[in-house]
């Protein structure tokens, strides 16, 4: 192969030495068709409750205002919802938004949304793929109880320089990639910015809102056994309203990784990661400047050990140091009446070690087992409040309400002194049993602990919510989850699972808790619990011109905060109530159709139960105003939520594989203009004083066009 045949007749009458130089030939191979069997349910491995999406699949989905959105795409998966259109964050299997571990190249992100939840912080051009773990979470992950969203950035092209980008209605993107010392390394730099605010400026509107982000990845191969990687992300949202309200927030992360092969069987990865979340606010009306944030330094050393064909181990160490700034208040100028104040900074260290084994016991039976041992040290320097009976929240038995406790003193903890410490052993177990080549059943159990909490009493987090570490009053959240699944693989794949999970020490807030700039959060918090359970079905068609999936989830998510003693009522009278993101039914259909090489189409449809809300069950008059009166929490529902989005992609020159290549993406969000309720407000009409119910819908019919290019 590879050379032309050379024929020469020789008569062998004597010893003869002859060098034949063969001329190389050009291979004329038939086109090799590699049948791609992507997204096929993993039958053999015990891994379950995991969904993988590649960026190609995500890009096939229609996007709101043409901006491909990774977080919106995971909402099409079973077990994933959010607290309504335009809400930031997402909820996995009835868990809260702060219970998701969001990792970008292993670095922790604290806020996943731009513009209060309209766009995700991930620039789709710079992303390779994502993996969402909803259960059976491997022991290398820890620190959040509900899920892990593990996102990897693309590595740059190590052979040639390329650029690509897109021009959309709301934002534009540009990415450059290429080799660093050809064959040895590569770089990738991507930027994205919205520019709708520029149009506002043209119309003499002083309000402005925009976001931008920057992704970067460098990789360099030192030699056969050693590689270095550097990943970075920097994103900011900026709001300016009438020069009176100025708001900036965003994440920044940096990760330096060293990959080392000790032997063919032992791989290692050492990461040093810095993450930062900043929130800043300037309120001219009140003469107030507000800064808050969280910084963390993370070191991780992970090993992968292939002991035999049937036995693989992963183990490692990890330590995160946190530096929380709950708030710095300062005056905007000399005329402001605000006094400068620094809310106590909080410090904590979270070390952990883990071991996981993947063991193929027989051809049919495989087990993953392991544990994570996590520790948490809340550290000074800080003055901690002391309360009578150690109760920061007191119960007023006469009025039957909870009230803020009054500190009876403070205790000073010096720098580095431990204020409170916790440790938890988190066992993880997953089993798979293969029924035949195409079918298997799997079961898993995992325990997880979470030591930091987002202090938020709204249905979906807002950017100004602050994170708080566990201490004497806020206990670590502890989760136990079991899941059982049946998996079938064929032209269609079917993945069905049932799960049950419960969380201890889920914090809840006393009625009317004011969380903003609260110096003593413990005075409005009670430790409760939550539980959720459900059935998930995912049916995929993986080949042919028509591709896609149908996902359906039937579930329930509730929380309860009973009284601490028999005399106390607890929150919501101690009864279980639906969480703000509980959606009984959740159906999502995702389809893509390739008509020709030039034209392809995509479509997504969602139908969900309306989210739980509390509607008034009466009204009364007090001080000349009408006040709605309420019964139990979250007993009503918004109307059902549904919408259909479509997109068409046109590639003018599909055969062109070099030079400038372009494509047009036309999309329509909410095709039939469904006015979904984002909220229902009950209020007095400003002119008539009459009571009215007002529905807020965020997205109507939105057409958009995006032009993508690469060269």
């Amino acid at each position, binding site marked *: 192969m590879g050379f032309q045949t050379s024929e020469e007749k020789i008569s062998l009458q004597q010893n003869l030495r002859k060098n034949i130089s063969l001329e190389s030939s050009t291979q004329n191979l038939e086109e090799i068709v590699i049948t791609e069997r992507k997204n096929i349910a993993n039958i053999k491995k015990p891994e379950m409750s995991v969904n993988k999406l590649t960026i190609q699949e995500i890009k096939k989905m229609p996007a709101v205002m043409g901006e491909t959105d990774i977080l919106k795409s995971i909402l099409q998966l079973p077990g994933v919802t959010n607290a*309504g259109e*335009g809400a930031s964050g997402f909820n996995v299997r009835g868990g809260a938004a702060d219970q998701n571990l969001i990792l970008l190249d292993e670095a922790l992100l604290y806020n996943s949304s731009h513009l209060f*939840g309209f766009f995700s912080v991930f620039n789709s051009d710079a992303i390779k793929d994502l993996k969402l773990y909803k259960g059976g979470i491997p022991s290398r992950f820890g620190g959040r109880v509900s899920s892990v969203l593990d996102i990897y950035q693309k590595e740059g092209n190590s052979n040639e320089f390329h650029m690509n980008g897109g021009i959309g209605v709301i934002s534009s993107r540009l990415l450059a990639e290429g080799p660093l010392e050809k064959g040895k390394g590569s770089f990738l730099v991507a930027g994205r910015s919205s520019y709708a605010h520029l149009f506002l400026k043209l119309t003499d509107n002083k309000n402005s*809102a925009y976001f931008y982000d920057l992704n970067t990845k460098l990789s360099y191969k030192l030699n056969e056994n050693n590689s270095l990687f550097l990943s970075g992300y920097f994103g900011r949202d900026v709001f300016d*309203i*009438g020069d009176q*309200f100025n708001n900036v927030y965003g994440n920044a992360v940096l990760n330096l990784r060293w990959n080392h092969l000790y032997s063919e069987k032992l791989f290692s990865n050492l990461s040093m990661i810095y993450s930062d979340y900043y929130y800043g606010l300037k309120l001219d009306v*009140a003469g107030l400047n507000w800064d808050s944030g969280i910084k963390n330094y993370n070191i991780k050393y992970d090993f992968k050990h292939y002991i035999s064909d049937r036995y693989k181990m992963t183990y490692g160490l990890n330590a995160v140091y946190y530096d929380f700034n709950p708030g710095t*208040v300062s005056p905007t100028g000399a005329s402001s*009446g605000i*006094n400068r104040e620094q809310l106590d900074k909080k410090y904590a260290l979270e070390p952990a070690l883990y071991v996981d084994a993947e063991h193929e016991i027989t051809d049919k039976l495989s087990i993953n087992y392991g544990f994570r041992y996590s520790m948490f040290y809340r550290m000074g320097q800080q003055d901690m409040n002391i309360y009578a009976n150690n109760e920061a929240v007191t119960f007023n038995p*006469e*009025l*039957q*309400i909870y009230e803020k406790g009054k500190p009876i003193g403070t205790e000073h903890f010096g720098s580095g002194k431990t204020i409170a410490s916790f440790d938890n052993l988190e066992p993880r177990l997953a089993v798979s049993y293969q029924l035949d080549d195409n079918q298997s059943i799997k079961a898993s159990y995992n325990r997880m602990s979470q030591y930091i909490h987002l202090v938020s009493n709204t*249905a*979906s987090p*807002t950017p100004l919510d602050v994170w708080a570490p566990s201490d004497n009053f806020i206990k670590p959240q502890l989760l136990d989850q079991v899941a059982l699944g049946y998996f079938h693989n064929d032209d269609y794949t079917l993945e069905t699972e049932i799960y049950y999970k419960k969380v201890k020490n889920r914090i809840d807030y006393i009625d*009317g*808790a*004011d969380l903003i*700039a609260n110096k003593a959060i413990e005075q409005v918090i009670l430790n409760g619990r939550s539980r959720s359970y459900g059935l998930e079905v995912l049916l995929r068609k993986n080949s042919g011109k028509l591709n896609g999936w149908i996902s359906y989830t039937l579930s329930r998510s509730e929380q309860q905060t009973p009284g601490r003693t028999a005399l106390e009522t607890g929150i*919501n009278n101690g009864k279980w109530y639906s969480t703000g993101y509980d959606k009984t039914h959740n159906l999502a259909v995702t389809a893509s159709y390739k008509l020709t090489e030039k034209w392809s189409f995509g479509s997504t449809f969602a139908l969900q139960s309306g989210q*739980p809300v*509390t*509607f*008034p*069950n*009466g*009204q*009364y*008059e*007090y*001080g*000349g*105003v009408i*006040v*709605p*009166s*309420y*019964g139990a*929490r*979250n007993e009503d529902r*918004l109307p059902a939520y549904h919408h259909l989005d479509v997109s068409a992609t046109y590639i003018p020159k599909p055969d062109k594989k070099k030079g400038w290549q372009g494509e047009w993406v036309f999309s329509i969000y909410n095709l039939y203009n469904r006015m979904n309720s984002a*909220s*229902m*407000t*009950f209020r007095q009409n*400003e*002119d*008539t004083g009459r009571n009215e*119910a*007002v*529905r*807020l*819908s*965020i*997205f*109507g019919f*939105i057409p958009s066009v995006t032009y993508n290019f690469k060269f």
Partner: protein
Amino acid sequence: MKNIKYIALLFLSVLCFSCEEVVDVDLKTAPPRLVIDASIDWVKGTDGTTQKIKLTTTTGYFQNVIPVVSNATVFVTNSSNTVFTFTETPGTGEYICSDFQAVIGETYVLTVVHNGQTYTATEKMTAVPDITRTEQNNEGGFSNDEIEVKFFYNDNGQEDNFYLSKFETSRLPYPDYDVLDDKFFQGNEMFGLFTHEDFKPGDQLKISLLGISERYYNYMYILIGIAEGAGGGPFQTTPANVRGNIVNQTDKNNYALGYFRVSERTELIYTIQ
């Protein structure tokens, strides 16, 4: 500070493709509950002898009439057990007293007896500083074109203070309330402000400032939030009934809504320039 969330929501409704629409919603109606609106205000410069307490009940959210409660027994006692009786103007649910003795720092106890249930509440009269000056800015509001009125007062730096401000204008069919504490302003000059897009020169704005207790501050903080509109959505907290300081001594679970407040009050009428 609570306004930030409203600002966020307002912002979304202004800049994004959102729309608000009044819709019909079927609501359940809970059995009626007693509401006690007992606001004893001693207006500076008056003797404070005439006071009013109003009794009503809850009703269906879309009902147009608030039912009044007649034939209740209403009285207030002070720390030396002097009884001030409130007598109903028949059929109105309004109970009037004309011999009240207002004293700063005095503790008062309210008693209401109705339908065999006895309700009580205790509150101390809180002082208020004077309004020192006012300012008008014709480039206020989010669009910088609304008339904004600011009033100023000096906080007492020796103690933690809580304030209630009330604005009344014919431009709004109901009064506008705001609460403020001196958390960030201890001992400094503080201010309250009010804007209305329809203000015209010559309009009158009545501004009242009251010194209030911390408990009443917490009560009004929640109540204002509920009255301004709640009921779900990403930036909303779960609404709940706000409980005041009134205790049903007969049956704790059959609680009354409302509050017994005892405050010193300063007020002025500002004419838009």
